[in-house]
């Protein structure tokens, strides 16, 4: 079965001071099948949000997607689309829900008008039809009294409702793939669960694939089929969720798990990962995690570790895996 989304060697460059180049996304490859949920997890600065933006060719200038990158949607090369076709894909095939609904909604337009303009951008519909469709969407995302909320301005809605409205707008074009970029980070904990459940429900009812971007591993459990862990612009481990949680292969992933406070086991001290996230214009040599790795080997700082496949759809970028395989 061919994949819905196929990303190969995605590389995003930004000019840096003194003529250098910053490469916040460096050789990212991922695949997504229809109806599947892939979680892209990483700290801030890992490049995960940029990766998502790249799929819609929304990398903010002066950044650019380097030649040699390939992004295929159902076999169609997204990087060579003409503007009209690109517009059709944006929102029509790939939808995106941004992190902060407060800033992602135009404050001078009502929620309803932002919905209807999106609907009408992707299909022929009269004003009345678009309005009906919009109200149906608001209902679908669980907004009470959708007809009333239709005429409301974003600032008149509570945080949770705003996020739901944002999700509704992202669905307005009936996309096959939904990117959720940290959809709950800006919300209260109680609302977070609701939103994630909503996304789940929508995924099932619409048969969408979901690319869930998060920095919190806990969010991901039970909600994603597969997880890709990102560090310093690269994917360092990719696995089925259950396997990742059971036995993470990459030292970074292991450290991430260790740093999560748990309720079920006694914890005396939190164990953060020492050091800090490196800067995109000065990635460490060879393995990018080696300065902070607690299992570092001598060759980690000399040779770049290869991507080692562990099982179908699972891989890890680490020298330790090579040793073990042998």
């Amino acid at each position, binding site marked *: 079965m061919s994949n819905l989304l196929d990303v190969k060697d995605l590389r995003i460059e930004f000019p840096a001071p003194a003529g250098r180049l910053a490469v916040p996304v460096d050789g990212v490859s991922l695949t997504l099948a229809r109806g599947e949920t892939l979680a892209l997890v990483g700290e801030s600065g890992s490049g995960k949000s940029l990766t998502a933006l790249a799929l819609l060719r929304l990398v903010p200038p002066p950044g650019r997607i380097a030649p040699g990158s390939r992004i295929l949607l159902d076999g169609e090369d997204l990087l060579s689309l003409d503007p009209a076709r690109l517009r059709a894909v944006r929102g029509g095939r790939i*939808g995106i829900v941004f992190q902060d609904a407060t*800033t992602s909604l135009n*404050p001078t337009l*009502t929620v309803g008008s932002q919905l209807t303009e*999106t609907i009408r*951008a992707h299909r022929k519909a009269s004003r009345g039809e678009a309005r009906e469709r919009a109200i149906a969407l608001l209902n679908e995302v669980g907004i009470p009294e959708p007809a009333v909320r239709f005429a409301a301005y974003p600032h008149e809605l509570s945080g949770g409702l705003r996020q739901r409205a944002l999700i509704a*707008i992202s669905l307005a074009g009936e996309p096959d793939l939904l990117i959720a970029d940290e959809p709950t980070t800006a919300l209260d904990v109680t609302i977070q669960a609701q939103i994630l459940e909503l996304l789940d429900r929508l995924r099932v009812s619409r048969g969408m694939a979901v690319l869930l971007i998060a920095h919190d591993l806990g969010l991901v459990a039970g909600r994603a089929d597969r997880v890709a862990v990102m560090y310093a612009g690269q994917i360092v481990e990719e696995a089925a969720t259950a396997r990742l949680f059971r036995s993470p292969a990459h030292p970074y992933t292991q450290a991430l798990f260790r740093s999560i406070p748990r309720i079920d086991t006694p914890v005396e001290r939190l164990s953060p990962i020492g050091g800090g996230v490196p800067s995109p214009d000065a990635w460490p040599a060879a393995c990018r995690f080696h300065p902070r790795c607690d299992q570092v080997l001598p060759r980690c700082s000399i040779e770049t570790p290869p991507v080692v496949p562990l099982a179908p759809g699972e891989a890890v970028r680490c020298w330790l895996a090579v040793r073990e395989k042998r």
Partner: protein
Amino acid sequence: MVGGSPPAYRARRPGRLTPVSRWLFRRLLQAALTFAAAVVLLFFLMRLAPGDPLSRLAGDRAISEQELEFLRRRFGLNQPLVTQFRAFLGGIAQGDLGVSIEHYPEKVTSLLASRLPATLLLGGTVLLLNFIVGVWLGVTQAVRRGSRFDRWMTRLALAGYATPSFWLGLVLVAFVSLRWHLLPAAQMTDPLLPLDASPWTRAVDVLRHLALPALTLSLTSIAIMMRHQRAAMLSVFRLDYVSAARARGLTERRVLWRHAWRNTLAPMITLLGLWLPILVSGSIFVEAIFNWPGLGSLANDAIAARDYPVLLGTAMLVSGAVVLAGLLADVGYTIADPRVRQE
């Protein structure tokens, strides 16, 4: 998109309208107070400035001592200042701003009324020009930020702003009117126009006379509009909802105008309050050079003749307009930005 919500929704937020109307009331009161204070300032400013208007008058024409004395009493110039002020206030209450000294016995109010339309025409045209062209240029500059177009537009606009309006007016008159005979050099209408000329011909005639003064004023002040628009667009571009709109597949034009530009309207409207005083200052020079029969030239003449009642009346009118413009700008800002309404 100035919509209200259906009553059911409104009921959920019981105090939603009242804060706005309360604010409006306070703002109106503030404007009225400011205007009143300005009028008082003006009155005392004029009366306290030494110099006798009547002595000027006597120097220009042959007036007997008796007539001078009569005029002096007529204008209350021999009364103590406080009495004059009380008389002045009394007059205002009846809508009477007194009588002109220079053009005795014409009433100040009728003089103002006769000159106001010309200034409104000139000012309105310049405002329209500056807004339309200024907005378009500013937005284009923002879209093409850093390009040669952007840089050169900024330079030209700055150069225009640095140009004195009286000088530019003269240069334009010299070349466009006097040398190339393309447009008339002075006044608002052609005195030689036949009496039975059609309204269309009259209109065109006025437009031809309007062209150079409006162009002069516009070129020297459009920089303000352009820079504000450019800056506002650049700050909006950075905002998330602009790229969010793009991410939904909307056309670039839609994103630019309906999402980005729309959100610059609010700060642009506040410009209105700032811009009027500049227009007034500029029009004094321009109306003088082009002999445009408006309030600016009226003020010019009144100053030379020390015609205090007319001066006071004109200054009051203009100050009132400035205060009104500021008020309208604030109200417009509130309408344009729904978020502000909530406060």
